[in-house]
């Protein structure tokens, strides 16, 4: 049945890591913040559609590799902490975790600036962190506290960060695609020399609005980079069961595309850098990130009914993005294994501290229910308990009966 087909498919997911280039010097160094360029080859070549690929040789540095390691470890830890918080019912609603896909967020950030916009789906915690979002804001938002990035009103699926051009955080699958093209249009119109990275998944790739967005972007030469984070499963449906052509990088037809090993942060960085340059000159381009999520679709999905545990652990062993960078760091003598482990311990402490702080944060006041529906000055109205008086709630006034009803109900 389906699983047997899965096991033969899963071998394609377990691409072996290319052996890292050996350092020219064997001199032992402490944790280096050296910015002298190191060149690393991407694990896999880029596959292309209607465009010439960028070079497989990626320029990086000790500083960058270490920051990759630390940031990805932070993201990984955050997602695992979110998992425990959800199980402890401190996070309610829905929670879609990104662990396994960290390289996409990190590599992208390394290639762009905070003036380039990013818009993504509901699997947005790590993207938020990549855009400079803080752990405390993230956990607060997850737990619905006022100190959250969306004031506790958005939750897991709606993280935003305006000053970093992070446009969130969208619950409806694929809805962010045309939005991203609109952002790109605004950037082009204002001659900002910036692009928009519109992220969507393999499930969303079958939405009609994606093709509408592609056509619009291509027609008007918008600086839009459409990034398909292909983790091979749309919730529980494998890509080959929902798409006639799972070659998502080709589905733009007249829009060129690049397929990238999404578990290799350096490949992602190279591709995003290339894509930004391309989009600024020529218009839209698609990047398909071949990535993988360890968790299920959301916290209510164990993630093992539609794929084998062997597949999941196999990807973890062979393609894990953090391990890849760890091996690079060690083989280039940038840091020792122990130093990296210490870094991970520190990260864990940071996450725990942020969680503890977020737990102490207040939940939003009841009056916040009515704020920001419209601009200030408009509100909601409802009858008071006596039904003779119509109470209008402007943005600051609280309907007193509401709070008593809450405690009684």
């Amino acid at each position, binding site marked *: 049945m389906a699983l047997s087909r899965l096991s033969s498919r899963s071998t394609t997911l377990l691409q072996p890591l290319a052996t890292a280039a050996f350092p020219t010097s064997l001199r032992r160094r402490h944790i280096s913040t050296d910015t002298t360029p190191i060149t690393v080859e991407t694990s896999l070549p880029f596959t292309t559609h209607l465009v010439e690929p960028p070079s497989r040789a990626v320029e990086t540095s000790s500083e960058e590799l270490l920051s990759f390691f630390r940031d990805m470890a932070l993201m990984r830890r955050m997602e695992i902490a979110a998992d425990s918080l959800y199980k402890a019912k401190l996070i309610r609603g829905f929670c879609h975790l990104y662990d396994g896909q960290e390289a996409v967020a990190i590599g992208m950030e390394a290639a762009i600036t905070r003036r380039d916009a990013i818009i993504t789906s509901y699997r947005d915690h790590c993207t938020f962190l990549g855009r400079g979002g803080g752990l405390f804001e993230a956990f607060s938002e997850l737990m619905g506290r006022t100190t959250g990035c969306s004031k*506790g009103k958005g*939750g897991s699926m709606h993280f935003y960060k305006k000053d970093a051009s992070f446009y969130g955080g969208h619950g*409806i699958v694929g809805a962010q695609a045309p939005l991203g093209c609109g952002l790109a249009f605004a950037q082009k119109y204002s001659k900002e020399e910036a692009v928009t990275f519109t992220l969507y998944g393999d499930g969303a790739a079958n939405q009609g609005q994606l093709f509408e967005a592609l056509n619009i972007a291509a027609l008007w030469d918008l600086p839009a980079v459409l990034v398909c984070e292909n983790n091979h499963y749309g919730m529980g449906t494998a890509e080959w069961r929902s798409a006639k052509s799972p070659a998502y990088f080709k589905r733009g037809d007249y829009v060129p595309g690049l397929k990238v090993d999404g578990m290799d942060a350096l490949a992602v960085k190279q591709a995003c850098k290339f894509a930004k340059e391309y989009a600024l000159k020529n218009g839209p381009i698609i990047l398909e990130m071949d990535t993988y999520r360890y968790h299920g679709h959301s916290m209510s999905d164990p993630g093992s009914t539609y794929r084998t545990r062997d597949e999941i652990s196999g990807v973890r062993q062979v393609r894990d993005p953090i391990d890849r960078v760890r091996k690079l760091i060690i083989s280039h003598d940038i840091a020792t294994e122990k130093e990296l482990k210490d870094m991970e311990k520190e990260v864990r402490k940071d996450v725990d501290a942020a969680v503890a702080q977020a737990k102490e944060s207040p939940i939003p006041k009841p009056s916040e229910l009515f704020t920001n529906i419209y601009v200030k000055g408009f509100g909601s109205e409802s009858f008071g308990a006596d*039904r003779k008086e119509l109470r209008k709630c402007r943005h600051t006034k609280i309907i007193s009966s509401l709070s008593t009803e809450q405690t009684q109900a």
Partner: protein
Amino acid sequence: MASLLGRFCRKLVVPGSAHGARMVSTTSSCGSETVKSLNLYSAINQALHIALETDPRSYVFGEDVGFGGVFRCTTGLAERFGKNRVFNTPLCEQGIVGFGIGLAAMGNRAVVEIQFADYIYPAFDQIVNEAAKFRYRSGNQFNCGGLTIRAPYGAVGHGGHYHSQSPEAFFCHVPGIKVVIPRSPREAKGLLLSSIRDPNPVVFFEPKWLYRQAVEEVPEHDYMIPLSEAEVIREGNDITLVGWGAQLTVMEQACLDAEKEGISCELIDLKTLLPWDKETVEASVKKTGRLLISHEAPVTGGFGAEISATILERCFLKLEAPVSRVCGLDTPFPLVFEPFYMPTKNKILDAIKSTVNY
């Protein structure tokens, strides 16, 4: 066709935790029919099994229905009827519904599942512009009456903005389709079979909160509950309450509380919102002189407004008090604020009392 059990059964409501009481088993004096204690998703599952069994040209499709669906409503269907009749679709609501309309136009029964009512909007154009008007604009040459769209709707305690919406009002504004909402497992099975077999396209909203919470004795045989017939599920003299779906459980609790204060409430389950049974509600309001409508959807433009306006036209001189609507607030369905947003038992009770004391 009508449910025989409806008239003879007493329904015991046991208040459960927070919103949504557990509806305990009904006692039936029709001993000849075998009944089984089922929850809502099992009752719907049974209805789908029967629908596919009795009409070889019926199909069930939607996102993830093959393995049983995210709420298990389609369990066992693919195994029993085959992948050519029960199949998964890609993630594209507009495409799915349009495809269903086409299938129905060829004389088939297409039972489409939209995974959450919150996701139905990409398909809104297909439903409003294609499905609802097909028969009309083709002069009855073509129709898509075999189309039934099922979607879980309503609050579930932690659903947030996109897993809790009640969009029924949007669809009640479209002549050409029917909108049906069951309140319990037994009702759901009968109403779903009627909807599937009705020669008009039907949008069938299932209260997701009740998928597991509501348990009832459901007859095992093939039965249908008529559409466009409201049911008085509790008789009273002082005030008429009208609702549908999961909200009825909350209203029933308010009625019990009101009774302790000497107010006798009549509770009506509308069941079909479009076209709705005006006569039953009218008769009740002419008796009681007061009307209260309650629904989870926001109050402005909610279906309660239509009921209120119609009853006002028909019963103006008989009304002792303004029509009261206890509904969701005019905000997007909130995340952490859900308890404030919801039309709770106490809000309804307050409204009952002030309407009676007007």
